[in-house]
């Protein structure tokens, strides 16, 4: 098949770098509010009926939303195999913790309402809390570590190796900057969940969600600003040392990478990317105002805008780096040397072009069918069919 040579490999690489961003943002925007609601459940619902209302606002949609995460994993595997190989084995125990949380979550949703016993239900409520809070925190921590570089190197046969002791490898992830990034992601998703609840639920759940959401929005705003300052003054970025070959074979060892100036120098070379952090700050700020004013639809939209801005700011700032190595910068994974082959990227692009619009269309239709508040009557009259 010669068809795949229609698009240059460097263009395909940039497209797939952008699609990776789209998938991560899609995950944060959809499953993000599920996780946020999960964290909020024990606090916005004082009675079983209130908690059931909160759960049922996301009950019909969390399953579809979670596919963004699964698809993200599959797309990284298909389009960025070295990234898939290095990051998941490098963040091994952290990944295990995330998986555990994400395994508990579906089960908690489905099984909570199957017994009346309050102990049973309360246990699953806290499982939903963990299933929301832990992944939200760890994803941020992971991004915080990626920005600092991860201690791995590649052998000549491109086998990823990790340095340091076992405890160093796991606990080393929990450094101050990474934890700050974790706070950004956790607080922004709690705010997002609160925005969702204020749209889908009525008082008193709505009122409680609004006040918690306002606080976490302010925390997210401040933590994001602090992380930006930290990046500007306290953390080294990475840079190519020599000529950059953008259409070469995907072998990270062929390019020369060194520790460089701050990541934020990217804003001098590509000033337009400042759009992303502006979107981040503005979105979070407006969502906080919206939560306080009790606006429903626009708050959710602003919250989405803020999350989109924050996630894209990380990707745009680091471009073309995807996963720098702190131990051996030479092994760093970049857009130009860690992708799949031209054939695979092309085939996958065609599939994405066919199926992404379909997915967006039927997802939108499902949300339309489910439009409207979840009320007390909805959960009490339909005990058999809802959670």
């Amino acid at each position, binding site marked *: 098949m010669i068809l795949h040579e229609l698009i240059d490999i460097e263009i395909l690489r940039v497209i797939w770098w952008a699609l990776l961003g789209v998938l991560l943002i899609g995950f944060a925007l959809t499953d993000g509010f599920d996780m946020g609601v999960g964290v909020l459940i024990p606090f916005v619902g004082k009675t079983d009926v209130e908690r059931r209302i909160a759960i*049922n606002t996301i009950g019909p949609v969390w*399953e*579809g939303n*979670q*596919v963004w995460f*699964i*698809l993200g*994993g*599959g*797309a*990284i*595997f*298909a*389009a960025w195999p*070295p990234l*898939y*190989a*290095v990051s*998941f*084995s490098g963040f*091994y*125990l952290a990944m*295990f913790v995330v*998986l*555990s949380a*994400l*395994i508990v979550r*579906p*089960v908690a949703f*489905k*099984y909570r309402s*199957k*017994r009346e016993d309050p102990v049973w239900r309360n246990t699953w409520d806290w499982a939903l809390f963990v299933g929301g809070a832990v992944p939200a925190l760890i994803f941020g921590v992971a991004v915080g570590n990626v920005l600092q570089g991860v201690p791995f190197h590649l052998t000549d046969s*491109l*086998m*990823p190796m990790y340095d340091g002791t*076992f405890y160093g490898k796991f606990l080393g992830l929990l450094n101050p900057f990474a934890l700050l990034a974790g706070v950004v992601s956790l607080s922004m998703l709690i705010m997002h969940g609160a925005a969702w609840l204020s749209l889908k639920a009525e008082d008193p759940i709505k009122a409680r969600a609004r006040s918690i959401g306002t606080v976490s929005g302010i925390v997210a705003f401040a933590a994001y600003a602090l992380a930006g300052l930290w990046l500007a003054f306290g953390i080294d970025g990475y840079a190519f040392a020599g000529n950059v070959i953008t259409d*070469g*074979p*995907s072998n990270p*060892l062929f390019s020369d990478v060194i520790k460089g100036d701050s990541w934020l120098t990217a804003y001098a070379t590509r000033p337009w990317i400042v759009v992303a952090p502006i979107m981040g700050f503005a979105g979070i700020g407006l969502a906080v105002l919206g939560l306080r004013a009790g606006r429903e639809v626009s708050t959710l939209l602003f919250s989405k805008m803020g999350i989109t801005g924050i996630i894209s700011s990380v990707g745009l700032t680091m471009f073309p780096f995807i996963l720098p190595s702190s131990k051996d910068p030479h092994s760093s994974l970049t857009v130009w040397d860690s992708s*799949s082959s031209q*054939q*695979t990227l092309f*085939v996958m692009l065609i*599939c*994405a072009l066919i*199926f992404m619009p379909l*997915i967006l269309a*039927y*997802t939108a239709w*499902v949300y*339309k*069918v*489910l*439009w*409207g508040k979840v009320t007390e009557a909805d959960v009490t009259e*339909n005990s058999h*069919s*809802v959670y």
Partner: protein
Amino acid sequence: MELDIVELSRLQFAMTAMYHFLFVPLTLGLSILVAIMETVYVMTNRPIWRQMTKFWGTLFGINFVLGVATGITMEFQFGMNWSYYSHYVGDIFGAPLAIEGLMAFFLEATFVGLFFFGWDKLSKVGHLVVAWLVAIGSNFSALWILIANGWMQNPVGAEFNPLSMRMEMTSFFDVVFNEVAQAKFVHTVSAGYVTASVFVLGVSAWYLLKNRHVELARRSITVAAAFGLMSAFSVVILGDESGYSTTHSQKMKLAAIEAMWHTEPAPAAFTLVGFPDDEARETHYAVHLPYAMGLIGTRSLTEEVPGIAELVENAEARIKTGILAYDALMDIQALRGAPVPPELRARFEEHSADLGFAFLLKRYVDDPRDATDTQIAIAANDTVPKVWPLFWAFRLMVGLGFGFIATMAYFFYMASFRGMQFPRPALRLAVIMIPAPWIAAELGWFVAEFGRQPWTVDGVLPTALSVSHLSVTELLITLAGFVTFYTVLFVIEMGLMLKYIRKGPYMDVDETDVWTKRHVARLGQANATPAE
């Protein structure tokens, strides 16, 4: 056996995959059975069929969620425990996994919520469409996963790129229409349909024995027996197709399953039963069926099916040429990205098909070029998987397969021509049979995956080389975690399943009438005030 990274990673993969597959087959089949029941409801408008849809739908939901939850582990485990594998074949193997998400999993997961929550919000036909979309999504999921797995068994449409040190896709078409993948797909989904049919049949039989929910149970048996009979035939016939394609792609696996220690003159005999002895390389007390192996394996009377001894000799020769490819590869690697002279590339490509065989030596020597003849002979012997477990697992699976055909044929006959008067012993048998399809499915996967050893990708990448750079501690933590976690979830799942089966359908026909009135009223309202 010493616990090393490879063994622990294999154990973890086997455990999580087999556990995942406790839920998958029921999802595959029950989604379709439920959709069939709902179709009958929409066509006949009889509330009993709606009640059936909801009842089996509830059991489907309890099972589905664990399939999803344990599937998450599968999607990420390759990167976590098998990172060299992920790097080495991600260019090919990752694509079907991603397409599975795009095309299938999104579909089923998005609509499964609406299936449970949408009864009041959709028209009858609208809800029926949703039920079918869930079923189609689940089954497409299986298609792409089996294309991925089929490629591990028969790696077509790809070649090694010495610059990026990995396999790269040369033909997406070949990967998708891989004959092994296609045969495996139909075989696997049929097995899922049999599983669901046996499940519905068994649970309904239990109701009949208890004289409860008789109407629901009889109708369910009718649907399950018809669907199950068709699927049981399909699973055996397509299993045979699978065997035929294995003859071309994985001769060693076939020889091991049949305990064919030596090539026999065509058409070879099929060993019905016997006691394979891995040490002596012979089968004691074998009962042979003349000609059958040759016919099944080659569909001819003249083609030979190669035996294990000859395949080991063949492997030894390929290891030796693999070393030549490895030597050329090292020269290419030394260039560090500088242009490769054409004669060096030609030297590599001449033998590159056997490169994977050279990697078999890595267990014994760092540089395959330094291997002694003894080491080469040992590595060649490693290509023989353990025979007796494969031999027996395969026979047990096939025996169960024929058992399903007989059971389904019997119940189909009784339901269609004997006025649904099932004798009690037959009903008891149906209840006892419930676990059988799960056993058959797990045995099938065991034969497929254990029979591929010592390779993760047949002839391309040895299992011993595929793992991540992890510590034993890390693996023990995750293994213990998964075991604990999965055990707890399994106990909860079984408890809920039994609870809901004992409880039976929650809605009787009167209640259904009330529901229908309310439903009509609600839809009327919705039409009067369209959604915002």
